[in-house]
């Protein structure tokens, strides 16, 4: 269901709770289609919660939130299919291998689907790795599998929670190139990362979170800022 809009994401004073703990304490954010936004902040600032809320997994109890044209306070479930979330957990079935996982998650008829082969070659996974149970793969290799899935699904909004973590240099380059290419084809990307130097070469904008809200918003990578030292 394609909805034309200029803003991919718009939050105003969004609040979300987990029990009695406020995950988000009033987020204000607007992201346009095609932007690549770096989400920065200390641990516990609310980056993961924000990404999950944008994916429609966490409910916003106060304020407003609109993602890809969907009002998430009304129709949280509808947006999920159009959003690609890369979380801390891999969302993979460990007892199946990479190919079977992709076939399942893409709802493919069988494992010989072309999208699967193409996705794996794009992320640099080949040969035996494709038929090994995921439980036997390293963190970096699992990350590549989830990236392959992300690539194959080709959704309009990517929400990546520390996509570079645990990857070697070539892995990080793969992530970067995936992000850049996606952005060129119109995908909006929001990614959380601790690795500022590297992340900034990719992002067009940097946003700082703290205490469950956005505290700084900078376009076109400005250097440093004391905020990063906390």
């Amino acid at each position, binding site marked *: 269901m394609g909805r034309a809009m200029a803003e991919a994401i718009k939050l105003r004073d969004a*609040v979300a*709770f*987990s*029990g*009695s*703990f*406020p995950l988000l*304490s*009033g987020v204000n954010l607007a992201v346009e289609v095609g932007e690549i936004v770096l989400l920065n902040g200390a641990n516990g600032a609310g980056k993961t919660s924000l990404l999950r809320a944008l994916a429609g997994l966490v409910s916003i109890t106060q304020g407003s939130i609109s993602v890809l044209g969907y009002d998430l306070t009304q129709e949280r479930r509808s947006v999920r299919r159009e959003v690609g979330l890369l979380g801390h957990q891999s969302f993979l079935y460990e007892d199946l291998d990479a190919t079977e996982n992709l076939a399942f998650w893409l709802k493919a008829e069988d494992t010989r689907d072309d999208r699967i082969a193409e996705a794996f070659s794009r992320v640099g996974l080949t040969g035996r790795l494709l038929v090994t149970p995921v439980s036997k793969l390293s963190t970096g290799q699992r990350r590549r599998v989830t990236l392959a899935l992300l690539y194959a699904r080709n959704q309009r909004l990517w929400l990546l929670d520390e996509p570079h973590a645990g990857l070697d240099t070539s892995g990080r380059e793969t992530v970067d190139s995936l992000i850049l290419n996606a952005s060129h084809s119109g995908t909006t990307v929001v990614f959380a990362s601790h690795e500022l130097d590297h992340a900034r070469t990719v992002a067009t904008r940097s946003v*700082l979170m*703290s*205490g*469950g*809200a956005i*505290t700084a918003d900078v376009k076109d990578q400005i250097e440093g800022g004391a*905020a990063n030292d*906390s």
Partner: protein
Amino acid sequence: MHRFGQAHSRADQIQRSLGLSALVGMVATIWLGLFITPPDQFMGDLVRLIYIHPPLAWVAFIAYGMNFLASLAYLWPRTRDLRWDQLAGASAEVGVLFTGLTLVTGSIWGRPAWGTWWTWDPLLTTTALLFVLYLGYLALRRVPDDQELRARRSAIAALIAFIDVPIVYFAVLWWKSLHQAPTVLNPTTHKTYIHGSMAWTLLLGFVAFTLTYAWMVMIRYRLGAIETRALKTQISSALRDRQLEGSHE
């Protein structure tokens, strides 16, 4: 909030009058049941349990019925309110208490007739299963979690349990009826000829126990409401703290 010895609010007044009338009813039932009404031809003084056991069972069933309705009310989007969840929980707690008492009095009552403490009488067996079912429900309610989450979970668990009750009853009834051995005193019917003062006392018993149930549920419910209020203040202050956390960076 509540000055000792003074009823402040309407709720306090209702609670107080419920408690009083329940007390009066119970005292009257006990007095009538123990002293005024006659002993039974066959059972002797044991028949006096008729003023306690059926009312206890009746209240247990109301309690679970209430739990079911309150759970439905919570799940229904238009009437969703945590207070229904409180009511459901309070009713179930009182219900479990009364169910336990039903089992004990039923067992005591049946012993002289049956010769044993337990014979799988259909009603009593169903009650025993109800007891365990709702113990499980209460255990589920105690799992510490987000209030709304806990309420949703409990409500659905209540539905699953309640829908099972008629199925359990029929299953046990058929199961038992296949083995009905003829006995002089049919243990599945505690029927004695009820007349005159016994009938009135029995009715009084039902009323008194129902009032007691209502009183206990109200107390438990208000306790729960206080907990919820405390939690709400906790939540708003947590929100403020979190926001301050942001501005101190």
